[in-house]
């Protein structure tokens, strides 16, 4: 699903240049649930940004579902993001004046799906995260866990190839975190490919594979036995 070869990225900091990713080789198969771990400054967010086409690499190859991702202009990147990727953010990033259903329907709007079909699909995905009866509520009326579940429904609504979650439990308490991870595991059980960036070991243990980043290189890449979050809920 994802193939990355010799990926480099550096940022200009005044006269210095900060080499953040120093040759990453990494691939993800369909249906994997991968945790990307590392301390801050390890380059895990930069890697996620490049995977999410939010940022470009300096050199190296990136192939997503057989499509080489290179030389993207803004419009093309937007179309690829819409088609291939679903994002889940640490701070949910729901649009506060839209209700849960409208939030979930937003990526479908950019896919130019008709209004009626959009609403039906949005309700279906809200149902999958167990929030169908909250469809008309604004984000401000939802708890943190509920917000993240709406955000996950939104990411899934576009039926992406890969779900990218950036610290999805970073703003949640541990019980709620496990609920969210339980949901992510279930989505993964359905065959979806998911990448989770986290620095919490217990969250990483709930994935099927852990990739450790340190100073811009992968120091460890191991398959693990998944801890089911449902045991803690």
């Amino acid at each position: 699903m994802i193939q990355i070869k010799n990926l480099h990225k550096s940022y200009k900091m005044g006269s210095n240049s900060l080499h953040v990713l120093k040759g990453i080789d990494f691939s993800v198969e369909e249906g994997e649930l991968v945790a990307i771990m590392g301390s801050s400054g390890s380059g895990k967010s930069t890697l996620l940004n490049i995977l999410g086409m939010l940022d470009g690499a300096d050199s190296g190859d990136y192939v997503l579902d057989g499509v080489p991702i290179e030389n993207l202009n803004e419009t093309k990147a937007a179309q690829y993001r819409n088609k291939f990727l679903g994002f889940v953010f640490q701070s949910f990033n729901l649009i506060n004046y839209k209700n849960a259903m409208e939030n979930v329907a937003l990526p479908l709007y950019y896919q130019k799906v008709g209004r009626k079909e959009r609403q039906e699909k949005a309700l279906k995905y809200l149902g999958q995260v167990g929030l169908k009866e909250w469809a008309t509520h604004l984000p401000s009326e939802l708890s943190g866990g509920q917000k993240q579940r709406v955000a996950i429904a939104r990411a899934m609504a576009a039926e992406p190839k890969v779900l990218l979650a950036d610290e999805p439990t970073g703003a949640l308490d541990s019980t709620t975190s496990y609920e969210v991870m339980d949901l992510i595991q279930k989505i993964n059980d359905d065959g979806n490919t998911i990448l989770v960036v986290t620095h919490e070991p217990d969250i990483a243990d709930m994935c099927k594979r852990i990739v450790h980043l340190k100073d811009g290189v992968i120091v460890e890449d191991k398959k693990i036995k998944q801890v089911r979050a449902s045991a803690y809920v």
Partner: protein
Amino acid sequence: MFDRDIWAEIFNSIKNNKLRTFLTGFSVGWGIFILVMLLGSVNGMTNGFHSQFNDDATNSIFIRPGSTSIAYAGFEAERRIQLKNNDIEYIRKSFPDDFENISGRMFRRTTARYKSETGSYTVQAVHPDFQVIEKTIITKGRFINTNDLISSAKVAVIGRKVKEDLFKNEEALGEFVEFNGLPFRVIGVFTDDGDDNAERGIIAPISTYQRIYSNTDDVDQIALTYNSSYDLTRALEFSGRLETILKRRHKVAPKDQGGIRIWNYAEAFSDISSFTGILDTGAIFVVMLILTAGIVGIGNIMVFTVKERTKEIGVRKALGAEPIQIIKLVLLESVFITALSGFIGLFVATGILAAVGPLMNSPAFTNPSVDFGIILTVTIILIIAGFFAGLLPAMKAARIKPIVALNDK
């Protein structure tokens, strides 16, 4: 453009920032309000000026004799100048291309009597051309014609008021009225837009009056209209030539202001036109300055909105919004706020003008109003203004990197 979702978002954005939107929209609405009020007022003044003049053709020239003030060519000062029929003939022959209509004028007071009704009126004895020069409107019958002139017929065209005074509700046409004892047949009734006073007048053929009054060929005044295709310069040049030649004929010193006076409407009219033109330009200039302030205000609010929604726009882009869709969102909101507030200003101002306009009818200020052309122009200005106000903020919004949505730790 007619996407329901985009409008839903625009209304949401406005709803969430009611005060801010109102304050900014107010400046645009106020600018348009002032524009319409100013242009309406200038229009009212222009209408007022024109209505003061509109009882005469706007290309008319009046020649009035007086007394000389300078001794010249062997004559002493204070000599009365008398115009004659042959002056009219002379002008006819000398300036065939320059004039369109020409008429002599004689004024005599008369006591008119019909049956038991009498009244005192001024008779203007003129040539048939006078109808055009004075813009006399015949409501019944006809004006005097060349036949009346040749035969010195005792016929008269009477003003509406004269007809009311003497005939009440009876038919006047064909009846005989006595003017100082002489019977004149009524051949027409006229009205005059300019003033009621003119309708208290009587018009008769000039030849008739010249015969009645001691068989003279005296003329009190000469009125003419110049070639209507002439611009101001040519009109003034023509009246200059007229003056030179008439002064020569009557042996009046060239710089004598008193002997023969020529009054040209073009001169008076061009003064007014340039005056109202300056007012118009001034009004538009002032309003453009006010509107600019309003537009900068809207640009400002849009910059602020974009800044405030940076994160939201980043999220949208992460979810697949293309730059053009973001630009559309911001531009439409800007155009919408500008157009809406402008229209409110427009409607309030035209409403006030429509309500107050008919009440104000002093001579110098008539029917203040704006025409459809102004409204159309204002609408186009508003939409363009809204577009430009939103353009920079929209481009700024389109450049927002979706990465900012992720950088929230």
